[in-house]
């Protein structure tokens, strides 16, 4: 049965969905969906029939989850969206990430939010509860926002153990739970400390994006504020893997099912645009031992935009499709794991998130 591929693109002014068959040669756009809303997170979920979750927000009106069961034609706002209690003293400003729970928990979803926190839904997104084991961590008073805000932007679940998870927060670092979220361990050993001015030396690590190796759940990789790192012990310790990367600063990171890694380096933390004006994706085909420029086909003209941390994604096909969106609203993709790049013809608002969804036709 032929597959359908949908690339879900969130922007600062709505979402746009790009549909293709599994050859991924011709794309049909729908949208704008949720026009006017900032869409920082999207999830296409097949577990109970096709459903799209969107983390929507607005600088005036706050953030909520909206759900579509007709590929974006209509949306329903979730009344019991993630929300902090009055007593917590925290404010929910953005929903940065929505991910499905472990395969053994088909009704479960997790959401990572700003101010940094983790929420769980056990009823397919109808209601959400704060994972207080994280937000009541002893280091919480020292969590300080980075340039993008105090955001929990990455949630990874061990495919072999639903109670083992990792989260990453900008300017705070990596935390792991081995008991389903009741308690969390700081996992920043080997990551450089960034100056936050807070008296908690074990945190203050500016992780930009983290991915889990598809074949070894003790191995993970992250793009840091100053470097690219790898762990082979479940995040207990980290080692740099920057051989061939032209700059240590960047935001997004992705890994294919075959283990190919992708990053998009930028000039520096002070100059957050493409390194020397060249739009280049870097790929590692040996689990981070070395990196090289990924393929050809990206613009040769000067590019001084950026790619945000969640605006790079891969699909689940073979060879993998790789997709990324820029701050100027351009959408590029490769249907052969980064050998050849093309642009999907559209100029969108600033792209905040790119997610893929493969459906059986």
């Amino acid at each position, binding site marked *: 049965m032929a597959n359908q591929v949908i690339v879900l693109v969130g922007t600062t002014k709505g979402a746009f969905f790009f549909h293709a068959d599994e050859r991924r040669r011709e794309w049909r756009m729908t949208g704008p969906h949720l026009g*006017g809303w900032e869409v920082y997170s999207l999830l296409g979920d097949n577990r109970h029939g096709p459903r799209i979750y969107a983390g929507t927000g*607005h600088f*005036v009106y706050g953030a909520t989850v909206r759900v579509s069961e007709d590929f974006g034609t209509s949306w329903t706002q979730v009344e019991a969206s993630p929300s902090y209690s009055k007593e917590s003293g925290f*404010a929910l400003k953005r929903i940065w990430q929505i991910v499905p729970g472990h395969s053994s928990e088909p009704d479960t979803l997790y959401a990572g939010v700003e101010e940094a926190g983790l929420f769980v839904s056990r009823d397919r997104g109808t209601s959400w509860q704060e994972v207080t084991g994280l937000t009541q961590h002893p280091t919480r008073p020292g969590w300080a926002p980075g340039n993008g805000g105090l955001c929990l932007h990455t949630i990874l679940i061990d495919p072999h153990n639903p109670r083992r998870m990792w989260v990453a927060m900008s300017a705070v670092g990596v935390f792991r739970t081995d008991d389903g979220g009741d308690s969390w361990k700081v996992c920043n050993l080997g990551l450089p400390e960034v100056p936050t001015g807070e008296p908690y030396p074990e945190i203050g690590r500016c992780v930009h994006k983290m991915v889990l190796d598809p074949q070894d759940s003790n191995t993970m990789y992250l793009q840091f504020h100053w470097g690219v790192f790898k762990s082979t012990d479940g995040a207990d310790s980290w080692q740099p893997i920057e051989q061939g990367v032209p700059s240590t600063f960047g935001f997004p990171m992705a890994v294919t099912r075959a283990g190919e890694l992708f990053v998009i380096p930028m000039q520096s933390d002070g100059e957050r645009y493409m390194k020397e004006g060249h739009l280049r994706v870097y790929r590692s085909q040996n689990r981070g031992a070395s990196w090289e420029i990924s393929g050809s086909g990206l613009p040769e003209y000067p590019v001084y935009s950026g790619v945000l941390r969640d605006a790079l994604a891969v699909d689940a096909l073979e060879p993998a499709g790789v997709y990324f969106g820029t701050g100027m609203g351009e959408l590029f993709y490769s249907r052969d794991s980064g050998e050849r790049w093309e642009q999907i013809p559209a100029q969108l608002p600033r792209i905040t998130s790119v997610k893929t969804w493969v459906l059986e036709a």
Partner: protein
Amino acid sequence: MEITVTVPALLRDCVGGHTTFTIAGATLDQALRQLRATYPLLRVHLFDEAEQLRPHVLIFYNAESIAWLERLDIPLQPGDRLDVLQAVSGG
């Protein structure tokens, strides 16, 4: 007494797809409470976790922002309006 309420188009999906509708109440305070109770999806966009009006949300009772009213137990009159507005905050 019914009072006419308007909301920005961006929030219409929180109030049944309309931008203009009516709310019942004898006083402004009752109408505001009724607005929250009737449209819980709207409430989260107008009020924060501390149940305070979000900083860039304005609710005008006729020509006055409710933030500047000394009291809300004002008896409603025929023709009264409640307008939810986004403060013009730069740009």
